[in-house]
């Protein structure tokens, strides 16, 4: 790790001012992802600005028009929240099972949404890949068992956030602030595909901080299924988050595309119908439409089908194999 200056923000406004003043400042919240990147010299900032201690950004608030979650809320605090557990079981499942207990106590919701991809070529200094301003995606010819089956590249990462699929399924919105402005973007618009932006995974502009996640309404039904090789400290092979809002189903896949993947084909199958086992399976089949697996990850097609089916059945309080 390279030496760096460490700036500690004691409030969001000073943080935004400092962040605005120096575009080379590297933002840090819990530091889980950043420290890893710095240790591997994928990130080598001269200065790091931490907002990890800014308590005013750590909250879960139920208001008249929905639920607001500060970006500094830890995954562990979300997992401990009765409100989240009772009204947003899909989100709760995802954050409560992420990483390890120790990581969840440090990892923030904002950090989870903004973390960089886990692709091993991106994480290795030796591979000057597209994401690092290089000219090729090494996963195409290389080891791609955990890579994307949707999206057509040119970069084949999967988005690493566990919290993102359920939040997109809930049609959450993200509040982004700069020193002088505040904007709210739909969660599905926050994440960007590599054909639009290679060097980042979201729409954040320089000087801009994701400060709040806003969930307008509780779903009548929701669930998330994550299929993992290991049951401790592992990134899922496939995720499906579903939520029923105003009667209509939303289906979002994770770990299979560079962004949380809104599955229009599955949603078209489901419409506003009540779930049966057959319908859930049919939605699962539809969900892999358009997938283009790479050499080693065709097994993910089957996992997607199962994840979608089980997520829908779980949301509908039907029994699923466990």
């Amino acid at each position: 790790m390279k030496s760096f200056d460490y700036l500690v923000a004691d409030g969001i406004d000073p943080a935004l001012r400092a962040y605005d003043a120096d575009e080379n400042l590297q933002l840090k919240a819990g530091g889980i992802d950043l420290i890893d990147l710095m240790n591997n010299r994928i990130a080598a900032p001269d200065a790091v600005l931490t907002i990890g201690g800014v308590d005013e950004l750590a909250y879960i608030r139920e208001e008249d028009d929905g639920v607001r979650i500060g970006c500094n809320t830890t995954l562990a605090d979300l997992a401990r929240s009765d409100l989240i557990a009772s009204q947003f079981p899909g989100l709760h499942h995802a954050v409560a099972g992420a990483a390890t207990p120790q990581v969840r106590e440090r990892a923030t919701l904002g950090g989870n949404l903004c973390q960089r991809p886990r692709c091993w070529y991106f994480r290795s200094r030796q591979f000057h890949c597209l994401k690092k301003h290089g000219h090729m995606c090494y996963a195409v010819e290389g080891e791609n068992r955990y890579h994307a089956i949707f999206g057509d590249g040119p970069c084949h990462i999967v988005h690493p956030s566990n919290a993102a699929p359920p939040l997109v399924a809930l049609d959450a919105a993200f509040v982004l602030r700069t020193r002088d402005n505040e904007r709210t973007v739909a969660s599905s618009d926050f994440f960007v595909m590599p054909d639009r932006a290679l060097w980042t995974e979201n729409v954040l502009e320089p000087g801009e901080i994701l400060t709040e996640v806003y969930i307008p309404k509780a779903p009548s039904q929701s669930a998330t299924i994550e299929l993992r090789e290991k049951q401790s400290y592992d990134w899922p092979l496939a995720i499906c988050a579903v939520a029923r809002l105003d009667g209509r189903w939303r289906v979002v896949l994770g770990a299979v595309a560079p962004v949380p993947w809104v599955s229009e084909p599955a949603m078209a199958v489901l419409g506003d119908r009540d779930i049966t086992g057959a319908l859930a399976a049919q939605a699962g089949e539809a969900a892999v439409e358009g997938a283009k697996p790479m050499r080693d990850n065709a097994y993910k097609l089957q996992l997607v089908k199962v994840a979608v089916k089980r997520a829908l059945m779980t949301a509908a309080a039907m029994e699923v194999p466990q």
Partner: protein
Amino acid sequence: MSEQPWREDNRVALENDAPRLDVIEKVTGKARYTTDYYPQNMIWAGYIRCPFGKAVVSSSNLDAARGISGVLEVELTKTDGRYHGDRLGHVCAESRAAMEQAIAALDLQFDVQDPVTDAGRAKTPLDQIESPDNHEQARQVLEQGEVIHEATYETQVQTHCCLEPHGALVDVRDDAVTAWGSTQGTFGFRDDLAQTLGVRQDQVEFHCEYVGGGFGSKFGAGAEGTLAAEMSQKYKRPCRVVLNRAEEQTDTGNRPGSHQYMKLAVSPDGKIQGGRIHTWGHVGPSGGGGGAANPSRYNFGTIARSHEDVHLNAGFPRAMRAPGHPQGMFAVSMMLEELAERLDMDPLQFRIKNDPDQVRQQMYRVGAELIGWDRRQPNGAGTGVMRAGFGIGATDWGNSAGRATVDVNVFRDGTVEVLSGSQDIGMGFRTMLCDCVASQLGVPREQLRVKVGVSTYPPGPASGGSVTSRFVAPKALGAAEQAKQAVLQLVADEWGVENPASLSIEGGVISDGQQTMPWSEACKLISDDRLHFSVSRDGRHRGVTTSSQGVQFVEVQVDTETGIVRCKRVVAIQEMGRPVNRNTAENQITGAVIQGMSFALFENRLLDRPTGAMVNPNMQMYKIAGPVDVPEIIPVIWKSEAEAGVNSLGEPPVVATPGAIGCAVYNAIGAPVRRMPITPDRVLEAIARGPAGGDA
């Protein structure tokens, strides 16, 4: 369950049930490992490494690296790298930051060449392998055999993943060297340092009081100790070399991968008659070490056996907990399972029929009851999405004698000091010594101070081949016995009792049946500074020679829609001669089961095919079982029938687990997965392929 005598008799017949002796030091961080020492004026050194499988340095910026403030030297000693992690040179600097900056500033550019990464393609085809001498006999067995079964199994590379990385800290002064190292051999490390530095053995004081795992990868000073010694000698300052995780994953050795071809004939009533076995080991760019223990442990009849090591542009094998055995027994167990299926026999009965060992014969019956073997359905007969499967594995280990010396000092304040230079790599060596001496003396543990892992202490073995306890315990018991007799003699003299043998010590109190004296009072009778005993012979404490047999039964659950395997329960029956401390003995068993399970289901060194780089040189994407993956493990300490001494325990339990899991998965899905790790994609493939299997 009260009808199970082994529970009463074999599980609990232990000397001691006390906690691990150094548990407080270890969980509070008081225990100091090599990496925890930062002497004043220390310098840092590390290696410059090749990041690809096969690559030649095309450019470097030595001047820039040497120009970094705090850098003492930067040397490139070769330009062609033969595996990811290959050492091309070294850096020595005033600080870690300077060392790392120098490596970055060196800006090595490589001409990357096509590496050999795929052993399946690189291996010599079977039909081109030279036939073993007894090829003709084996051919006849196969020709005349009524039931023939043929399959090839594949196992992956497993890395050691020691929690404490390899490392050393060496401080060379004018005529004395003090050093710390993470090692499983105190004296081997000391000898290597002495040789590197050109000093006498007695001039090196080497320390490894605490070691965070070795598993076979930490014999000798290694590249780390050698560099630290050379730099310390050169700069006359303490020098530290401690590897980072990526270095640990690529260049500290591994359990080599294998392909194992087996073609066996079996009689219709279930006796294996013989056949052909050929194994390929996946080794480094040169050298060997890829052997797999196949066949082993069962009667195989007439086997024509051959082996080839396949050279890859990848890190070298190094001994790893029962080298060759877990991978060998994966193939053996799976083959037995497939043969039983061919014969429509219960695999338990098939094993009983072909296993020559009488102790394991008993263990099969006990284990079957403990796991609930009667719940097992025929292969693939389960219904529903989640299917249970049951499997069996077997193991054994030898118990030859060996050299060691243990010193026991009894001080006038009652303190009993126990000394052995051998190291505690995490198995509980301190605890074992303590409980041997305390139980033999009849004094409470609190009186004892057990000191291990320093080269000035009495000699003892390196921890390899599961010898540490077996070599050292008899001497500890012998020294304790001498100490006890000496103290009883003093008390007998004081009391005017003629025969000291009529005195006893229990719970730290000496008694002749009428009067009593506490241990601490008795020790005041010592007229010299201390009583000193040094024992190097086994004597009667070695016991009857036996072997450490073991059998494991596992239950898995397979999600047949996703291919995800969960290991649910493992009954691990293990003989170890005389068990000393239940906690550490059970810990050895459960630790081995976890390591074997993790090998069977998760761990895999993945090489980037185009460049030979290991893409998962970390403990995130190199997947190791975590707490939730760990099954219910029921360790059963099997009491030997013979009056055995303290026997092998470290390695044998890891041998049985992977094969047992493979069999259980086969049982659950009705199709063999012949490749480890047994990952969801492979399980799904096997289900799609169906019962006949087909080569990996």
